[in-house]
């Protein structure tokens, strides 16, 4: 792949990379016929983001067959972020950015043409990878809201930065945002915040079925930061609890989709019994979710306390057939897990445990090894 980004679009690309790096610590760079896709997924597979830049975004876009996907491991991603650091001055200093992906040499090159004739060239060696795609069909969602990013930014402003999950409810002509507090004892002591927006604050308000979904606020904020900088409206597509919510931002040259898992139904009731889960001891592997949604989770030996977390399988959609999950499943244990990824039991696909390997894996085989009992996730239905 060979493409050139000019002017203000360099900053947009840089913001996309920064947004994605907040989702997961690996970035998938996938040149396709219909554009360049940048994708990422978080370690618990409960949040996925995809930025698809159409060929028109670029002043030059050439894709070579066979298509090559590359994954930027955390180290490489840091390098790429360093290439695009100092966002504020990027549009003043960088005139043109040339990105070249040479499959045969596993080389990814960023060349930035800057002011004063300065040219910065970064040559990185990447790893081949399978494509990362999630199965979702936002067009089939019964509820669709669309608003200017400012509205949503102002809304989430009222929630504390540390808040993990937020609930969004629609009914009739109103949209309610509430902070999500699970455990019974906490509910009595916690401050509950609720914001109500009327349907006329939205550019588009289509509610097919009254619903209340709960999802991770951090990822929503991540998208809003990007949306605000572009000034494009944000669409929210969702269905029933348990089905993923799709947040998207689109314009003629760019399509951004954030797919977030939502808490499944039984947990959404205000007085559901507390899950009493101790995530510090959980085996990370149990939470790994494959993108292949046709598989339903099998029984597992995961701690019994997670019994009330149910895995929901999204009904597969023919035109978004999922590729098998990518090679690296590098979670090696909760000791490496960053504390803020504790939000629990949000799934949007079935669990298909894979072999845990460290990030240096270069194999492109997509063999899903038979899971040993420790890796299976709990699937007990309530």
């Amino acid at each position, binding site marked *: 792949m060979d493409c050139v980004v000019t002017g203000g679009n360099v900053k947009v690309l840089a913001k996309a990379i920064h947004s994605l790096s907040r989702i997961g610590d690996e970035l998938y760079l996938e040149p396709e016929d219909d554009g360049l896709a940048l994708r990422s997924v978080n370690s618990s597979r409960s949040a996925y983001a995809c930025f698809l830049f159409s060929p028109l975004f670029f002043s030059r876009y050439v894709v070579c067959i066979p298509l090559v996907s590359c994954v930027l491991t955390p*180290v*490489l991603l840091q*390098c790429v972020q*360093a290439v695009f*650091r100092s966002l504020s001055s990027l549009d003043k*200093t960088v005139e043109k950015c040339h990105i070249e992906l040479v499959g045969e040499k596993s*080389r*990814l090159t960023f060349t930035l043409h800057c002011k*004063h*004739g*300065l*040219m*910065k*060239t*970064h*040559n*990185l*060696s990447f790893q081949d990878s399978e494509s990362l795609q999630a199965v979702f069909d936002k067009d089939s969602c019964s509820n669709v809201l669309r608003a200017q990013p400012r509205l949503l930014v102002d809304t989430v402003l009222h929630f504390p930065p540390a808040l993990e999950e937020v609930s969004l409810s629609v009914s009739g002509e109103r949209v309610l945002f509430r902070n999500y507090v699970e455990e019974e004892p906490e509910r009595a002591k916690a401050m509950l915040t609720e914001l109500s927006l009327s349907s006329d604050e939205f550019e588009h308000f289509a509610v097919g079925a009254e619903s209340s979904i709960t999802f991770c606020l951090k990822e929503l904020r991540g998208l809003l930061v990007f949306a605000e900088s572009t000034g494009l409206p944000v669409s929210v597509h969702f269905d029933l609890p348990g089905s993923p919510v799709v947040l998207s931002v689109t314009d003629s040259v760019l399509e951004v989709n954030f797919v977030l898992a939502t808490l499944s139904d039984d947990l959404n009731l205000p007085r559901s019994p507390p899950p009493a889960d101790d995530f510090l001891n959980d085996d990370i592997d149990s939470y790994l979710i494959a993108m292949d949604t046709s598989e339903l989770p099998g029984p597992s030996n995961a701690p019994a306390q997670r019994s009330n977390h149910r895995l929901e399988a999204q009904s597969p959609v023919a035109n978004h057939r999922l590729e098998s999950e990518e090679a690296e499943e590098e979670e090696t244990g909760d000791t490496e897990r960053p504390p803020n990824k504790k939000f629990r039991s949000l799934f949007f696909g079935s669990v298909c445990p894979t072999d845990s390997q460290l990030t240096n894996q270069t194999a492109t085989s997509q063999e899903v090894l038979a899971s040993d009992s420790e890796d299976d996730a709990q699937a007990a239905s309530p």
Partner: protein
Amino acid sequence: MLLSTHSQTVDDNYVLVASLDNVRNLSNILKAITFKDHAIFNATPNGLKVTVEDSKCLQANAFIQAEIFQEFTIKEDSVGFQINLTVLLDCLTIFGGSTVAGVTTALRMCYNGYGYPLTLFLEEGGVVTVCKINTQEPEEPIDFEFCSTNVTNKVILQSESLKEAFSELDMTSEVLQITMSPSQPYFRLSTFGNSGNAHYDYPKDSDMMELFQCSKTQTNRYRMSLLKPSTKALALSCKVSVRTDSRGFLSLQYLVRNDDGQICFVEYYCCPDEEAEEEY
């Protein structure tokens, strides 16, 4: 005022007396070469030269001309001593180095000669601090034998653009490779880090390039760890000259303007890294 009346009676004993109304005109420059504890001071009627060396491969010199000082009296042709630079800087900034407008710390630096400590009188707002720092036998600074006649390539750049490049340098690279050539890429900084290599190219006709005199294509590598301290000098400077000689030795000269707009110089000399010479 306070300082001069205090020391008037003992002036005769000093071989070197230097005074500054604003101690920052000395301390800021010294900060640009503080990467080792010890520094060699050499004072001549022309001014003060402070030298810091690292593993016989790197040498940094700060020059503060006599004209910078409000008073600079020297009784010998050359006065030299070695001193702990970290301690000296701590003393020079003992009043906290505040940048409140109109408030400066005054300095009077006195040296009695061989074997005597360096005495510092610092005054701010009527408060006087006296510091005496032990001195040692000065070592002879390394002579890198870098002379202008041997210079093969020279460029002078505005520091602004180099600052950007240096702040982005891949620190996982053990070396910094500098290529200077009369043809493409003209002036190139390269790093070879964990995930790949990076190049920063400055064309000869860039408006950041004030002087471009390259006669021969040369590529040399220098240990990143040795050059890293030079970024402090770069940060202070407005212009930098980069020269390499026929042996590949590197000379970086930084033009620094102090608080009063006066010019001082800092220079770094660095040996090329001999280990690996393959081109990328």
